[in-house]
């Protein structure tokens, strides 16, 4: 059951979408929420959940082979929503593993490559990461410096990648680099000579997620590790569309968690001899939160139904990613405010979600970049190039 469902979205879900949502919700309640505050405070990803998520089918939800069970786009979105109700870091892990590693290998890899890498990634025995961003190239990945040069039966890879989710725990690094002026993707295996990985510390956001940087110095990658179906940067952006769709849903989970905490607090916290929820200013905040949340839910539902019919241009996904992250962040900040001083304590989930959402606002295309994508769609004029 949708925990916040003002417009009866429940009635638009199929039986299996509801079962999937409830199953992930049960997993989050049982296995994520009890320990997540500790993971966030200690800055550690809850590793023990990876295999469990593999068993439940979360990691293989975008493909139908090699042990995966593909689910409908709406079911996929509901999974992301529930996971992010737990923590954005956990949802990020699944977004990367499923949309940015398993999905591209499945779409653009050979049969041998799929047989080699997919089973472990889908079962959760292996971890993957998606290495696109570089220290000097974030919003503009086309400027990337990473380069691979063919040498016999291998490519020699040089370059650095930064802010890579799961880098420090990854077995397979889906790495993007120029080969003769065209962007290609390689699966670099952990421990390849010439590759070093370092965790990025001192984060105040996504603390329960692993983020790292990777350096390649004359790293030899066997030629058969290049995904032959990848032809230029647009392929990477195609994978990102898939992940961004999941983010648009995911942040609703974080928003619901904050909203519920705020509602509960507003009814129980007494100030000036009244519950604070009785004051008009607090009610206005709650009314705005619920309205924005409901609009964002409906946006996702329709986007998901269009995805199922293959009717989705990436600009539609940009709209949902941009809008829903804004909405979620705004709800988190309002909830933080309503909680008063308690709102800065991680004993409540709100501040954790609020801090996490700052990352979500930036990654997978910053808010501004999605604004420009929509601006170009509307006017036909490119504001960047």
């Amino acid at each position: 059951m949708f925990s916040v469902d003002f417009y009866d979205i429940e009635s638009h879900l199929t039986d299996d979408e509801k079962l999937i949502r409830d199953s992930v919700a049960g997993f989050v309640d049982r296995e994520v929420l009890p320990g997540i505050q500790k993971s966030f405070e200690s800055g550690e990803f809850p590793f023990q959940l990876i295999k469990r998520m593999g068993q439940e089918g979360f990691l293989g939800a975008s493909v139908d082979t090699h042990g995966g069970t593909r689910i409908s786009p709406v079911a996929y979105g509901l999974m992301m929503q529930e996971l992010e109700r737990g923590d954005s870091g956990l949802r990020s892990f699944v977004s990367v593993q499923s949309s940015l590693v398993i999905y591209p290998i499945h779409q653009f890899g050979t049969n041998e490559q799929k047989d080699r890498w997919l089973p472990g990634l889908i079962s959760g025995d292996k971890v993957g990461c998606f290495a696109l961003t570089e220290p000097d190239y974030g919003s503009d990945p086309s400027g990337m410096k990473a380069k691979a040069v063919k040498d016999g039966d291998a490519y020699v890879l040089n370059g650095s990648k930064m802010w890579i989710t799961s880098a420090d725990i990854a077995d397979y690094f889906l790495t993007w680099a120029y080969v003769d002026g065209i962007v290609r993707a390689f699966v670099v295996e952990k421990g390849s000579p010439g590759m070093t990985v370092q965790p990025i510390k001192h984060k105040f956001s996504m603390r329960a997620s692993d983020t790292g940087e990777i350096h390649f110095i004359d790293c030899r990658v066997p030629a058969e590790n290049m995904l032959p179906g990848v032809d230029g940067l647009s392929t990477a952006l195609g994978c990102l569309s898939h992940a961004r769709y999941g983010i648009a849903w995911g942040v609703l989970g974080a928003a619901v968690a904050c909203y519920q905490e705020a509602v509960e607090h507003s009814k129980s916290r007494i100030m000036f001899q009244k519950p604070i929820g009785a004051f008009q200013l607090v009610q206005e905040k709650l009314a705005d939160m619920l309205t924005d949340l409901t609009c964002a839910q409906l946006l996702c539902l329709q986007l998901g139904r269009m995805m199922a019919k293959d009717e989705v241009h990436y600009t539609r996904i940009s709209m949902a990613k941009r809008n829903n992250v804004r909405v979620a962040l705004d709800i988190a900040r309002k909830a933080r405010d309503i909680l008063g001083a308690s709102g800065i304590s991680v004993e409540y989930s709100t501040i954790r979600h609020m801090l996490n959402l700052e990352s979500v606002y930036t990654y997978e295309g910053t808010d501004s970049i999605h604004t420009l994508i929509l601006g170009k769609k509307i006017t036909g004029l490119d504001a960047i190039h």
Partner: protein
Amino acid sequence: MRIVVCVKQVIDTAARIVLKDGAVDGTNLAKVLNPYDEFAVEEAIRIRERLPDTEITLISLGPEGFRDALRAGLAMGADKAVHLLNPAFDDVDSLTASRLLAKAITTLGFDLILCGRQAVDDDMAQIGPALAVYLDIPCVTAVTQLEFSDDWNRATVTRQIEGGSEIIESPLPILLTCQKGLNQPRLPSFKGIMAAKKKQIETITAEKLGFDFITGNDSTSTVIATGLKLPSLRDKGVMLDGPASDAVVKLVKSLRDTEKVV
């Protein structure tokens, strides 16, 4: 082994119940597979994991919506399901429900019947024992541990009793009602959920069961619910303000004179 698991759908205990026209208004409330029935389904699946030649059939008597409970059990891993469906079944009492279930289960055939200890909505805890009587088989309630002899013909059952546990041995077929502690029910995996879509839910109507509408013999529920009441709201607490020294005096006075507890 042929295992039949009796399940029903209940309103999620976290939901806030509202009464409308003397009945529970479940329209917008979350409904789930009865938690005690989850123990029963889980136990059946664990038996099948040890004894692969096992078939697990779910059975439920109740309105259209109970299909969701059957789907949930199939998604956990049961093999097939039977739904006893007719508007006339909706208001039957526990005894009649048991009689109808017994009729259907006899035609299915069974070695073991598992039920939840009780349904968390009406808390009757009658279906299991009554069903065992109609089927004329032994029954053990509130089971927390279950083991079988090597030839799977006898069951050793641990059940909860006041201040301890009791161990009982019985030949099969037997009916057991499952108690918390028996196992930790699994969440349905995506594979299970998608596979459940292809599993069969057979609907059995009243006629097929030989349910006697004409004389009303079968539908004569001897027990009739005549009313429902929500628990009365807790009284508002009293705040004692002022400095602690005054508040303590007021508290003692109130405990002695008003509440009369000291």
